[in-house]
């Protein structure tokens, strides 16, 4: 399990209202949600994001509402992994439950710049900044969570 792509960098306390504004919550369509992802803090995001890219942010990423539409919009937009200093707890569980990879790593979050080429090894937790030629160590997922993500989300993991 690995990810590789360009970094899209944001600050602290990125809330779910800016990830996907509530005015778009009258739909559960993944593609429509993705078309509005980040529009209130980064209007150009949907045009510049490419399949496999990595989102990098500061403390408390995904705070606010429990809307699963937020990790869905991020995943559907093509983002393969979110790296943050910390995640808000509901976002953390929602991301795992829908199979969006997330890693907490303060050093990587501080050091990676917008546009850097970044790769992630989920088994080891090693994050590599290929642009700056540096590596950072994040805590790899515990087995319980790795099981959910590799099976493609919580629902798939509980099915016998």
């Amino acid at each position, binding site marked *: 399990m690995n990810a590789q792509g360009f970094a899209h960098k944001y600050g602290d*306390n990125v*809330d779910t*209202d*800016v990830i996907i*504004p*509530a*005015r778009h*919550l*009258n*739909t*559960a369509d993944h593609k429509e949600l993705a078309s509005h992802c980040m529009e*209130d*803090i980064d209007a150009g995001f949907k045009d510049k994001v490419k399949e496999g890219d990595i989102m990098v942010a500061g*403390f*408390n990423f995904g*705070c*606010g*509402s*429990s*809307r*699963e*539409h937020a*990790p*869905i919009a991020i995943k559907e937009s093509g983002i393969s992994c979110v790296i943050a200093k*910390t995640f*808000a*707890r*509901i976002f953390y*569980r*929602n991301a795992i*439950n*829908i199979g969006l990879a997330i890693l907490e790593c303060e050093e990587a979050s501080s050091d990676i710049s917008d546009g850097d080429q970044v790769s992630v090894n989920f088994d080891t937790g090693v994050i590599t900044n290929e642009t700056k030629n540096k590596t950072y160590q994040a805590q790899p997922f*515990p087995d*319980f969570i790795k099981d959910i993500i590799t099976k493609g*989300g*919580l*629902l*798939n993991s*509980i*099915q016998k």
Partner: protein
Amino acid sequence: MGMTMTQKILAAHAGLESVAAGQLIRADLDMVLGNDITSPVAINEFEKAGFEKVFDREKISMVMDHFVPNKDIKAAQQCKQCRTFARKFDIKNYYDVGEMGIEHALLPEKGLVAAGELIIGADSHTCTYGALGAFSTGVGSTDMACGMATGQAWFKVPSAICFNLTGTLSEYVSGKDVILHIIGRIGVDGALYRSMEFRGDGVKNLTMDDRLCIANMAIEAGAKNGIFPVDEVTEEYMKGRVDRPYVVYEADADAEYDQVIDIDLSSILPTVSFPHLPENTRTIDQVGDVKIDQVVIGSCTNGRLSDMKAAAEILKGKKVHRDVRAIIIPATQAVYKESMRLGYLDIFIDAGCIVSTPTCGPCLGGYMGILAEGERCVATTNRNFVGRMGHTASEVYLAGPAVAAASAVTGKISSPKEVL
């Protein structure tokens, strides 16, 4: 080592003698909640996974409250999907137009949540029910789907911060000011992944509405849950509402807390959170001259009867400032009806406010009070993020009902003392 109140409830629902912070558990659920924007995602997942039955038709609540009465065609489609699902599985606690209220005001009022129970809800403010001595927490739609199918959810057992409350609240100060004060002190991630356990002699001086409001905004400090001990106030509230046996849990005397924070309730002043984070708090004497365009009094945070009373006492015989639109939203039909009986609705309408049917509406920028570019609103709601109530260049100032009502009269953020 002793357990916190939260850990005891989690252990009991996981069938374990004890649990420790950091432990991953699977626990039984007493109630699974969803609303009109989170349930459709859950229903899609439920159907995609091929589940053919729900674990217990009486332990699921679906409340149509966010964009209801339907604000547009898409919202109508989503409610229709929920309604169809609820009928198919004979969901007992399905609340639609006519019976519905804002979910976190409605469930305690209807006795659907009780002390010692474990509740998950696909809405972040599900943490409200900690006021009753329950463990309740917000989750996403996939957790809701799994919860509806299996009656279980996975949890990482949280550690806790103890808030040791003493003293009594001053005049015009309510639970909202307490929680804004706390968030201002510890920050929007000050309790991240942890429980906020409220304890101490001051608890008995807080009404159930105060406690519901405080627990409601635990998520705004990043907490997994907020929880109060069960006392006479709790028992009195549940009497006549909860007709099933419930269990009262207490934290062990040697429970370990990450931190103990002392809060003297008598020292708390009316508090306002400035844009764009709930932690940007200022006491009312420090707000300066902030002109406003709108006031919203309502929401799962402050749409209960005591909030209507606080607003009515200030607005009685007064007029809303001509530059302000004042929107009052009783949180449930019962609150609406009781406000009518007590004459509050006459006071509001005579003052120039509008009174709306229960809805989350403006709180999350859905409808019923969207802000234009550059506009400012004093709201008794719970979030003031960028664009939360409308245009990305609009501003939301969070306050309790007394400050909101006073501000409606003066046209700027004001202390109740300025108008009385």
